[in-house]
Every structure is written in C-alpha cells, then in structure tokens.
C-alpha cells in the first residue's frame, strides 16, 4: 500500500538580513497509515520547519519551500491555497508546543473548536458546538460541558493542551502533526498528555508526526524515529533500532543526555559539547563533526544517508512486534558498525 505521506528532498529556505538560510536541507521520509514517526533534534535542527512546511505554515514571503510531499497521493508543496486549506485541520491536524499562545486568548475554547469543524463540515453552529463538546470529552477534559465556555487563560497548561488535542481530533484527521506537544508542560502533565495521545491514536488509527527534542518522550509513542541535525536527517530507524543500536554519534549524545531516574546518581550528566553550527555557515561533510569526539579525516567528505548497520552484516535489530512495517535503519556516519558499537558505550550506557 502506498504510504500516507511521502516526503522527498524537502528544502526550506529563509531569507534573512545576513543572507539566505537553509533550515531544512533535503529531507526525505515516509509516514505509513496509523504509524507514529518521531522527528528528534535540538533547536535549530530544522525539525519544526520540516513539520510546518508540509502545510505551508512557515509563514512569510521570505520563506521558500521546495521538494515534494505527497499526502494521500496528492502533492502538498506548491498546492493552491484553497486545496491546502481543505487539507489543514481536516486531513492533517496540528498540535503546537505552547497551548497558551497557540489558542486565541479572547475566544472561548468551545467556539475555537467549533470554528474548525465549521470550516470543513457544513453543519449548523449548534451542531458544531455539540461536536466540539464531544471532542473535548474524548480528549479527557473533565467537566467538558462547562469548559466549553472557558477562555484559555482560565485553564491550566495541561487542560489547554487537551483543548488543542480536542481541536486537532475534531475532524478525524488521518495525520496528526504534534510539534513539541509536551515541552511546555510539567513532567506529570506530560505523562498524561502522552498517554492521552497514545489512547486517541489507538482508538482513531491516526498517523502521528511527533516533533520533539526529547528522545525520552518518543520511546513509548513512536514506531519509527528520524534524528535531525543542522537541517539534515542523520539517522532513521525503528524506535528499537534507535534506542538499542544507534549508529550516529549525535543519536548517542541525545540518548546520553536524557536524565535518568535509574542508574547511578551523577554530579555531571553526559552531554553533547558545543552548539549546532550556524545555519548560515554549514561545514562540509558531516555537519556534526565539530562536536563529535570520534571525528576522523573522512568526516569532511560528503556523506549519504545509507543502510550501514545491515550492510556490514551485523544483523541489526530483531524484527519488532509493534511496528506496522519494518523499515531500514539508515545513518550518515562513516565509522564501521563494529567501531560504533565499541565507541558508543560510556559508563555502561550509550552516550558520547
């Protein structure tokens, strides 16, 4: 079956005062029906720009989007505004990071959800409000009847995000783009929202593109993971491959910097030294090499995203029970899989 979403060589450029800036430099991936694909990377890795570009939401005439993104067989990039509008909210819905600023502060929650329903379904205002209330209840909003009339500032962060989720699910989309849906929330609320997303996904069969900087968040939810760095995909694989057999040092660094509640207590946490390169001045070859302790001469060569772990005959990860479709593990690091396995273990755990 054809994938729900197929993205090929997506590029996003911003015109800035200091010159053109390539936020996304040729990203390709697919999302199958009902699958959760996590896009993980630090701020500035281009992960949010990738997600927004699918719906043309990067905004501003200074942005140009190129490449291809086929959704249900139809091209999204460069699609006429009216066609894009019909897709937004109805077939592809979005949840944003900060539910406070992402909801209109002067409109009631119920009206904001009903507005979306009425943009896509020809129903009366009353009917739309009724559906909005159902959506709120389904998103786990307590006293949803009362909260329909609440303004965003009258709700807690967790409840606001539930309202956003209700809105996103109100038109039964087939793809949900969740851009850092739990980053602005407390750990306890984050756990609830993640559980809510997992439940709604199981119930509705929606595919999810989960954008986050926190690999810890994706472990429970994602089927596959795309690791982005400096506008490029540096590694992709199933969640098991990424967590158990990560191939790119950047992925090791991300895994290592998760603060763990098990394991030994440390005054110093494993971290990735330095900061991402300026998008105005990307290095040649592996873009991570300036921060990589394992860099060697060949890292300056241009390097492709390839299936290296399997190509070397290492066996890779075992087939997994939950993924809708086993897919190849690709990475952009030239070290041999054997070297990687030896280098990535720091203090008994994966790290840089």
């Amino acid at each position, binding site marked *: 079956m054809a994938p729900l979403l197929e993205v090929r060589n997506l590029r996003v450029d911003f015109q800035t005062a200091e010159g053109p800036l390539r936020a996304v430099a040729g990203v390709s991936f697919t999302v199958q029906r009902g699958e959760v694909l996590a896009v993980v990377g630090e701020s500035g890795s281009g992960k949010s720009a990738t997600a927004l570009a699918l*719906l043309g*939401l990067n*905004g501003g*005439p200074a942005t140009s989007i190129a490449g291809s993104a086929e959704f249900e067989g139809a091209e999204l990039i460069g699609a006429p*505004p009216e066609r894009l*509008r*019909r*897709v*937004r*909210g*109805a077939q592809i*819905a*979005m949840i*944003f990071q*900060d539910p406070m*600023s*992402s*909801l*209109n*502060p*002067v409109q009631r929650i119920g009206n904001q959800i009903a*507005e*979306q329903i009425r*943009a*896509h379904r020809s129903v009366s205002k009353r009917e739309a409000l009724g559906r909005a209330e159902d959506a709120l209840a389904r998103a786990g909003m307590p006293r949803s009847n009362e909260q329909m009339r609440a*303004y965003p*500032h*009258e709700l807690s962060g967790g409840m606001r995000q539930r309202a*956003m989720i209700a*809105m996103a699910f109100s*038109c039964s989309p087939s793809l949900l783009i969740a851009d850092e849906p739990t980053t602005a929330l407390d750990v306890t609320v984050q756990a609830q929202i993640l559980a809510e997303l997992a439940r709604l996904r199981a119930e509705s069969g929606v595919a999810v593109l989960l954008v986050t900087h926190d690999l810890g968040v994706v472990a429970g939810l994602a089927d596959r993971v795309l690791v982005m760095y400096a506008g490029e995909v540096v590694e992709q694989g199933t969640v098991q491959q990424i967590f158990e057999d990560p191939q790119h040092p950047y992925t090791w660094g991300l895994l290592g910097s998760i603060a763990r509640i098990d394991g030994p207590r440390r005054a110093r946490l494993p971290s990735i030294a330095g900061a991402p390169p300026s998008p105005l001045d990307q290095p040649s070859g592996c873009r991570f090499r300036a921060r990589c302790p394992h860099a060697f001469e060949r890292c300056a060569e241009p390097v492709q995203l390839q299936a290296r772990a399997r190509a070397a005959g290492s066996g890779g990860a075992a087939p997994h029970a939950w993924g809708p479709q086993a897919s190849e593990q690709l990475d952009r690091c030239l070290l041999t899989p054997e070297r990687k396995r030896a280098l990535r273990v720091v203090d008994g755990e994966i790290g840089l």
Partner: protein
Amino acid sequence: MIRFALWRIAATVAVLFAISVLTFLIFQVIPNGDPAVRLAGRLANTQEIHDVRRQWGFDKPIYVQYLRTMEQIFTGKVISYTQQVNVLEQIGQDLPATISLTVGAGLIWLVVGIALGLAGALLAEGGRLQRLLDRLLGALAMLGISMPSFLLGDVLLFYLGFKLHVFPLGGYVPLTQDPWAWLTHMILPWISLSILTIGFYSRLLRAGILDTLSEPYVRTARAKGLSERRVLIAHVLRNSLVPIVALWGLDFAAVLGGGALLTETVFNLGGVGQYAAESIQHLDIPPILVITMLTAFIVVLFSTITDVVQALLDPRVRLRS
C-alpha cells in the same frame, strides 16, 4: 460588577467636586476677574458696582458663593453673567452642533483609520502601493502631531470655501432643518478634526496587526483550515482592534469634552466649545463651570464605558475597583 459601578460613581463625584472647586477658585484669583465690575457695565460708578455685588451675592464668603452656584447648577437655574441667560438652556441649544461635529469626526477617523491601517498591514510587503501608503500615513501622523487643527481648518476654509466656493464658509445648519446643508456645512469641520488622528490610528493598527500576524494562535487558525479571510477578520483584526477601541473611547471623550473647541470656533459652528471659548474671553464663570464639569463628567463616563467594552472584548481584562 456592582463594586466596580459603585466605585466609579464615587470617583465621578469626587472628580466633579475637585474640578468645580478648582475652576471656581481659579476664576476668583484671576486678575480683572471681578464679576460685579463686568456686570455693572463699563460706565458704572462705585455705588452701582457695590449694588450689583450685593444683589448677586459677590460680597459673601467664597464657599457660600460656591455652594450657591452649585445649587443653581443642579436645579437648572444658573444664569450667565454677561448675557444673563440660562446656561443650561444655552448649552442645550449648542449641543447639536457639537455632537454633529464630534460624532461624525470620531466615526470618520475610526473607520478610515482602521481601513488604512488594515490596508497598510496587508498590502504586498515592499510593493509600490504599500510604500506609497506608508509614506502617506507617515506624513499624516507627523502632521497630526505637529499641526494645530485650527490652522488646517483655516487653510481648508480659505481654499475650498473662500477661493473655490466648493463648501460654505462656516456656520451650522441643523440636520432637521436641511440635511443636505447640514452635510455640506459639516464636511470641512469633520475633515479638519479627524484627518490628523487618522494617520496615528492607522499606523497604530498597522503595527498591531503585524504583531498579531506573528502570534502562534494565528498560525493555529491557519492550521485549522480556516480561510485566509476568516483568519484575518476573526483572529487578526479582532484581536488587534482591542487597543484601538480603548484609545478611541478616550480620544472621543476628549474631543467631545472640549477638544473640538478650536474647530468649532474656526468654522463658527456655534457649538458648546465655541460657547466655552467666548465665556472664557468674558471671564463668565457660570458657563465655564458648567462646561468644565460636563467635560469632566463625559471623560469619566467614556473611560468607564471604554473599560467595560475592553473587558467585553478581552476576557483577560478585569474590571478592577
């Protein structure tokens, strides 16, 4: 809500009291301000002045005079010194002109300001039209700050009225008497009063819209699949208008309560503002007092209305006492 209302009523009374005392005292100490001298006429002798002073009660202590004047104002019996007519009746006669001027001008600068501000924000960025509008609005705003409205009024009158005969040379015709004449008489006053504010309002709204456009909730509105039109009206414009409406309430009150004084005088509209200006020239305390208090009342009233409207438009705003 009740607390808010009670508090505002108390504040209004306090403001009216303070402003009336202050105005009263100022005209007591002003040189050449003895009303008895003025009332008695230019050729009066000392005895006649003395009689007038006794008769009108100007020999009584100041606070007695103040209380008596207040009593007259609130019973509607206050008489002006110069023409000796009932002040409230006089104001009642002048009010239609003032209201015609201020309401018309207020609506014009609100509507045109919003339209130009919207155009300025939404025209293609950096396009020729946008640059042109930008310069026009910039010039208007600059003029509005630096040019007094009476000068503009005089210039308009001179060229469009005196030289080209397009518009009448001032004066006021009641709407009920001849609507067309009313309109032609009001157009120049409206323009001269509103044009200078339009530049400021449109620039303010433009900046507000550009700020709002980059708000995450506008991105959400687009992500919901709303039409661009609906995004702009229901989310961008609606939210950017909140400060404009608040400002308009206060500016309108200021104009209604005396800001139009110069325009009225220039165009000889015979409104309340012109009456105030004449009364000040003659140091005629009763009309000055009444108009000052009326102005204060209008300002307080409109700022209250503005607060309430703002709370209705933006639920985050709370009515505080």
